[in-house]
């Protein structure tokens, strides 16, 4: 782990987001533990993991929008901001939110105020931060933004008059309104149909590219991450278990969880029976000590009761006592992972 930190310290100044040792807990239960995370300028980083692995909590900690009794420790720094976001007060935070740091949430149906017109909700984002001179300019900018997410002419509509995909595009427009340095998307397309998902993903990517914003993209869908991200972090049980460039992680997973996940989600090439990960994802706070995956890991030994150290000075790192062997030649023919791992 320390090596990773060192490696990134070199470029620390230029990183948009730097999270160090983030631990999120509710009362005595630890939900997210010791997460490190950096996002470089213009970089697109994916955060994947199954339900309950702590992805949303991580994202919300960055914005400091955690539910009331949930607390975050560690350090969250944003380039250009001279204080740590953890420990900052509401006044400081509200200046950052929506301006340097924007977020798109999962549920498009409830993310918009049902009693306010779409245009006003977008305009508000700019008015709050005074990035436009006046109300009229804000309206014009809002209409413009709506046009760019391909929703011309809905400024005077109310949210309930739009479909889920359309609402999500409005949310994206709100998030991009002030050209944020970092856009965080928390499963923005999970609730959408594939065809609509394709469009929304495309819009997000275009928007991010046009503004040279960095993107932290949270999803449980490996294929989506593979499509839009350059780098990926795999979370399980509140910890980052593996991280690295998308191509490397997905073609040569080292952590046994990543490996299992890839195999289980690959429906296309698997035979009649799918490779599975035994057992279920434990409930929050019920993950085992040591290696969080050890109760479901076919390779677990006594060693796994100790927390595995972070391995990998290279961009591709993982935390596992029994990693899958490194492949020399990148094999894209699926279905071989298991064989390789067994070998």
């Amino acid at each position, binding site marked *: 782990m320390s090596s990773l930190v060192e490696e990134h310290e070199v470029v620390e100044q230029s990183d948009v987001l730097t999270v160090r040792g983030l631990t999120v807990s509710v009362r005595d239960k630890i939900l997210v533990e010791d997460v490190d995370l950096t996002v470089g300028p213009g970089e697109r980083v994916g955060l994947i993991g199954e339900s*309950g692995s702590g992805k949303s909590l991580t994202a919300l900690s960055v914005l400091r929008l955690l539910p009331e009794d949930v607390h975050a420790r560690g350090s969250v720094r944003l380039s250009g901001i001279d204080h740590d976001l953890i420990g900052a007060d509401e006044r400081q935070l509200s200046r950052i939110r929506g301006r340097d740091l924007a977020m798109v949430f999962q549920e498009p149906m409830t993310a918009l105020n049902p009693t306010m017109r779409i245009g006003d909700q977008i305009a508000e984002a700019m008015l709050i931060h005074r990035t436009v001179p006046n109300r009229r300019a804000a309206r014009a900018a809002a209409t413009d933004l709506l046009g760019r997410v391909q929703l011309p002419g809905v400024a005077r509509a109310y949210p309930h008059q739009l479909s889920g995909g359309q609402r999500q595009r409005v949310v994206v427009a709100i998030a991009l309104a002030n050209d944020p340095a970092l856009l965080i998307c928390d499963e923005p397309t999970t*609730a959408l149909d594939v065809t609509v998902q394709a469009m929304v993903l495309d819009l997000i990517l275009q928007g991010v590219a046009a503004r040279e914003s960095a993107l932290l993209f949270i999803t449980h869908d490996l294929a989506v991450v593979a499509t839009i991200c350059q780098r990926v972090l795999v979370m399980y049980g509140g910890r980052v278990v593996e991280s690295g460039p998308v191509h490397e992680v997905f073609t040569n997973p080292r952590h046994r969880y990543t490996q299992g996940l890839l195999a289980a989600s690959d429906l296309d090439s698997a035979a009649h029976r799918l490779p599975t990960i035994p057992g279920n994802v434990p409930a929050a706070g019920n993950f085992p000590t040591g290696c969080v995956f050890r109760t479901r890991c076919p390779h677990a030994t006594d060693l796994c009761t100790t927390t595995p150290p972070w391995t990998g000075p290279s961009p591709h790192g993982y935390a596992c006592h029994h990693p899958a062997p490194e492949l020399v030649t990148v094999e894209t023919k699926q279905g071989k992972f298991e064989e390789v791992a067994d070998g």
Partner: protein
Amino acid sequence: MSGLGGSVDDEGGPVSDRGAPESALGVPASGADVSTGGGASTGVGGPTGVGGSALRRSAGRRLNPSLVVGGIIVLVIVLTALVSFVWTPYDATLVDPAVRLAKPSWSHWFGTDKFGRDLLSQIMVGSRTTLFVGLVAVGVAAVIGVPLGILAAMTRRWSSELIMRANDLLLAFPALLLAIMFGAVFGASTLTAMVAIGIATVPSFARVIRSGALQVMRAEYVLAARAAGRRPFPIALRHVLPNVTSLITVQASVSFAIAVLAEAALSFLGYGTPPPTPSWGRMLQESQEFLFSAPRLAVFPGVAIAIAVLGFNLLGDGLRDRFDPKLEDRR
């Protein structure tokens, strides 16, 4: 984690035309916290994907103070009532001019009233009346309101509409009015007054139960039961009713508090519990002459009423929190 947990909320189609006001109307005319959920939340018509509300809800549930305090108060009242059947310091209706208006002392802990009756004994026996009052009112309301609510949720559009309209109509007859009119027709007694209060409480029961039952009816296990061949009546009995019991309990304890207050108000107006049955409401009314000379005559029953109402309200709040994980942190 109850049957009416957030899971059902996650589902559901586009907001119906009457969705918001109806669930909003499902609140009693008085009382404590009410869940007003449903109105504002829009559902998604699409696949939820790997959305994770499932595990989130298992997150820790503390004993909430409302429930504990409310429970203890109610328990104390029930115990007092039970004890009063076998033992009270004095016969609560025994008139003894020799000790009238006695101050609190070792022989009469709370003192005596103008008839020389022991206040403590009256308070104790009065708790019986209070419980009786609540049980009758809530019983009537539940026995009529719950089936009506379930029926309204399970039947077709027009018949359920009819039930709910009738319900609205009943809402136009406030509890106090009904009680006074019932008293005039059937003679003033605690029973008639409370039956009237109960009837006036039917609408709020029916509404709450209906919206709960509607949620249950939307759940897939009802569909599964139908696919297994269950008929509507057994479904109502085995699936809907058990899954709205939490709502019934909450509504019952809030209504209980309202009934206790209503009895006090009626007694004040002279339409409540007739003498000599001890009742807190009447004690309070009788104490009026003595507000200056012996304020304690008003203090004891007044405090008793307030505590009882508080207890049932807190219990209701506590139960609501407990049953509805969405409202987990309410107090």
